[in-house]
């Protein structure tokens, strides 16, 4: 019996785990995108925040993902066993690329353009909304895309703390020393990652078309 037979025979469960997996990622991104973009914008406005926020996001990124899930379990309110903890961990993981790209995108807007905008009497909000964000959009979206693809991969580890998703098969397969079961989790996860990358890439091109 190969991995595909296993997938087809267990399609109901595979579908359910895939859905769980997607929901984990989606809920994490719903938190990470606004938070990351806002923090990225804050960095362009307040120099003093830069090293702190980027530093913190970098440190989070260096924590091995399995350890991060583990660390969060005893934390009150956000911790515990289950998907809430997993979503917090995924959100933290997704923040760095979004913050960094938002900051770099806005900082990379032609200084003459931003200065002309201010010199013409645009308010800070107008400069941000009408000039800086539209011009930085491609870079910001690229950050969101990277963050999403990373989250699809990292979310397989959520199964370790009882949050479900395709990681269930992977952990089960490792415990059973059964490659088919591992692949039953890994293949759909890889497909999800590719689909996320392709569809967000398409959205990126659509939104930044000149």
């Amino acid at each position: 019996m190969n991995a595909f037979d296993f997938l087809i025979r267990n399609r109901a469960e595979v579908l359910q785990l895939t859905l769980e997996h997607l929901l984990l990622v989606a809920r994490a991104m719903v938190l990470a995108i606004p938070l990351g973009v806002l923090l990225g914008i804050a960095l362009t406005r307040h120099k003093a925040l830069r090293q702190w926020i980027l530093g913190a996001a970098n440190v989070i990124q260096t924590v091995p993902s399995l350890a991060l899930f583990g660390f969060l379990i005893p934390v009150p309110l956000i911790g515990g066993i289950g998907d809430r903890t997993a979503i917090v961990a995924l959100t933290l993981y997704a923040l760095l690329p979004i913050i960094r790209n938002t900051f770099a995108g806005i900082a990379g807007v032609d200084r003459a353009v931003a200065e002309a905008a201010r010199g013409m009497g645009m308010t800070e909000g107008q400069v941000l909304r009408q000039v800086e964000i539209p011009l930085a959009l491609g870079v910001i979206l690229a950050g969101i895309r990277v963050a999403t693809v990373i989250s699809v991969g990292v979310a397989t580890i959520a199964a370790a703390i009882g949050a479900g998703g395709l990681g269930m098969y992977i952990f089960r397969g490792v415990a059973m020393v059964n490659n088919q079961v591992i692949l039953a989790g890994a293949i759909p996860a890889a497909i999800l990652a590719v689909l996320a990358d392709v569809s967000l890439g398409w959205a990126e091109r659509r939104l930044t078309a000149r």
Partner: protein
Amino acid sequence: METAAEHGSVIECRGVWYHADGGPPRAQPQRRALVSDLSLQVQGGETLILLGRSGSGKTTTLKLINRLLEPTSGEVLVEGRRTTDWDPICLRRRIGYVIQEVGLFPHFTIARNVGLVPSLEGWEAPRVQARVQEMLRLVGLDPGQFAPRRPHELSGGQRQRVGVARALAADPPILLMDEPFGALDPVTRAELQQEFRQLAARLGKTIVFVTHDVREALLLGTRIALLAGGKLVAVHPAKEFLRGPEAEVKEFVRALGAGDAALDPKPETENP
């Protein structure tokens, strides 16, 4: 504009100092002043040229007028009011601003670029559109052809024309121009200088124009203010600038070169 008339000048700098990192000047006495003790008046309807080398404080002075920068000490008055008392947004919308890099918004059409300030001011769409057409014609661009294009489809000279049209769109009484023709090829530059001269005479705006090019200063200016190292060295009517007695003026006049012997009244021998 009674306040301006009362005052005799539309823009006035009184003992203006500017240090790059802000704060009181005593905090770091050895800090280099970008503008030191500048006092200057710009009369209504004149074109005042700020002439100087790079780093002489010309651009800084311009930014102090539209409050992109605030003086460390001293005051800048626009229409009789300190810039720090103006709402910066109101102030800037009364002042057209043209910079060398033009700074057109690459994601907007030419029409939207030109109509930006009128739109921000809440004009209705048909009025903005009519104004855009009028402004494009004023700077010699066919609205039908150029309005729907994007800045990257235009040549440098055309972009700079759009920059001027954009600055004039809301009919501001004051115009600040920071080396607007500096990045253009010599032929296009000469063309735009001539057109600008006629435009300035026709529109009667109060203009402060920054350049490092004496020829341009002589051609376009009503008066020429020479800056060096952040200090005002001399202010002369454009016609008398070449005969200015100050050493720095002579240096600039000499830079006009031997090819301009006709223009150059040999300042060395004129020294009293």
